[in-house]
């Protein structure tokens, strides 16, 4: 490359390619990663999150689901031992195995509920923010309508209402109680209003930029303006909000299941494992300690991760 350009003086000033001058400039992704890795708690959170995921999904290889759901009345409420490291529950199921399979469900619920929330929140927020006017008023009044109903109340009513309506499903080689789908759906459709408001605010401010006018002046269609121009400018708050909503969904699932309206046994979740523990808070601490610890850890890790992402994705942050 250099040889040929240098031997052509008639081309005018010899131009050096950038990689000869310096290292190429950092891409947006690289900048984000540099900021993220300086955030100690975020790294800590990510590592922990990874470990929990490995625990929940790697554990499958050690214990079968049948083992996790097997009742052994002779071994009820056993304290942690060599045979049952986390002890056994009220009907003699192994708590270690149940935290593994329960973790899968909890994580799955967190992620898919986030996905439902994302689809609803982004589309409603984007439509309201981009088109404005009557559509905006209509959608925002609806959003506020959903917001004024306490989420827990809405969740419990819907969970109860839909509880029996969905049959069991097969996914990832496992059979789930239909109540898992109900919980995902219910959490998703009660959580989107916050995200919709964030997205709307983003759209309202981004659409006023000159580059949107410039894009329209080159003939870009409305659909492309929304999805190719405004949405990429709004990813940072959406990613942060989505991350945090995974943690929120896990907590909500635990809450509903704890009240007995969530995922039905024998399918384990960290939440419904706590349900049975309520009457044994003092006498059998291992019933609530392990699932409770896992919930606390995963929520904490996700929140740290979200914090780190918030700082790393902020284009105004100049720290590298």
């Amino acid at each position: 490359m250099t040889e040929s350009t240098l031997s052509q003086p008639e081309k005018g000033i010899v131009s050096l390619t950038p990689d000869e001058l310096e290292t190429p400039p950092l891409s947006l992704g690289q900048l984000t990663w540099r900021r993220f890795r300086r955030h100690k708690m975020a790294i800590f959170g990510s590592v922990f999150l990874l470990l929990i995921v490995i625990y929940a999904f790697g554990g499958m290889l050690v214990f079968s689901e049948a083992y996790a759901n097997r009742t052994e009345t002779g071994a009820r409420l056993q304290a942690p031992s060599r045979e049952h490291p986390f002890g056994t529950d009220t009907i003699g199921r192994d708590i270690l195995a149940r935290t593994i399979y329960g973790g899968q469900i909890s994580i799955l619920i967190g992620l898919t509920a986030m996905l439902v929330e994302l689809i609803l929140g982004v589309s409603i927020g984007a439509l309201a923010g981009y088109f404005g006017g009557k559509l905006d008023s209509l959608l925002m009044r609806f959003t506020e309508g959903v917001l004024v109903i306490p989420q827990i109340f809405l969740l419990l009513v819907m969970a109860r209402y839909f509880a029996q309506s969905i049959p069991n499903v097969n996914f990832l080689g496992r059979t789930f109680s239909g109540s898992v789908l109900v919980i995902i759906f219910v959490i998703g459709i009660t959580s989107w209003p916050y995200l919709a408001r964030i997205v709307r605010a983003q759209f309202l401010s981004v659409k006023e930029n000159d580059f949107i006018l410039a894009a329209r002046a080159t003939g870009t269609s409305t659909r492309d303006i929304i999805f190719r121009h405004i949405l990429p400018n709004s990813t940072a708050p959406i990613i942060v909000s989505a991350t945090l909503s995974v943690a929120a969904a896990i907590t909500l699932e635990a809450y509903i299941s704890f009240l007995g309206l969530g995922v039905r046994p024998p399918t384990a979740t960290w939440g419904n494992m706590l349900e049975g523990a309520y009457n044994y808070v003092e006498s059998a601490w291992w019933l609530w300690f392990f699932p409770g610890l896992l919930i606390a850890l995963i929520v904490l890790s996700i929140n740290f991760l979200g914090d780190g992402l918030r700082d790393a994705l902020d284009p105004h942050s100049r720290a590298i």
Partner: protein
Amino acid sequence: MDSERLLEVNNLRTRFHIAEGTVYAVNGVSFGINEGETIAVVGESGCGKSVTMLSILGLIPIPPGEIASGEALYQGRDLLKLNDSELEQMRGKDIAMIFQDPMTALNPVLSIGRQLGEPLRVHLGIKKQAIRQRSIELLEQVGIPDPAHRLSEYPHQFSGGQRQRAMIAMSLACFPSILIADEPTTALDVTIQAQIVELIQRFREQMNMAVIWITHDLGVVADIAERVLVMYAGFIVEEALVDDLYEDPRHPYTQALLAALPRIDRRRDRRLRSIPGAPPNLLVEPKGCPFAARCELVFDRCREEMPPLIQIASNHHQAACWIDVTTGKKR
């Protein structure tokens, strides 16, 4: 002459309905442009230059905007009557526009290549590889070194002048027959300004493209335009060939504007002339001549009736004034 007009705008009126009332932004503007011609639209900030152009391209948000009347005939079609998808097909392909501030006119989160490829993708429907090839050519033509490498860079990695070059490349990607340049040099250094002007001139010649140059810099106008439209408070007050306008301005506003220009041959200790008063409040429906309040030659009729834009000298020299400024006689 009218038959060969590429774009013909007649009696365009644009208003904005806002909380404080109605803004009368453009009040019956008519002009035309021929193939390959360069016209300049001059006037102070807020006189309706940009709104006129945005109205033609259908880029005025409605509401609050409203096109109250008028037509914009391009190749026999009235642009003001097109629907959204017809407008999208026209924008960037037939009529392209470049904006004042290259710092804000490029999307910060999309690479230059993706933005440059946008009009190609939308209008020419060509494949990825062809888009890339064409994008490299375009960047090269506007004078950005190492274009293949720079396609993957983001706007913040480009300097102001380079961004404006990239914007020009984007707007010229589909060989438009009209380029609207909305003060493309105002945000740039003087040395870069000259380069950008030259660049657009070169493309105009190569592509036989018509250029509508919006500016408030009368110095630039003399270099580039063949004809000049002078706008004031949403009206065109004078239209003339560039030399006629400088040598023989026929509207009191144009005269005052030219008198206010700093000149290199004038004594330095003399204060610059200014036009007393301020432009009219656009929230009031215009009645009479908009310049009446600041005009030295004003008489009763000026406040009552807007003078029409009429031909007052050879070469289609037109002005809208009740007084013939050369003789001082009323018309």
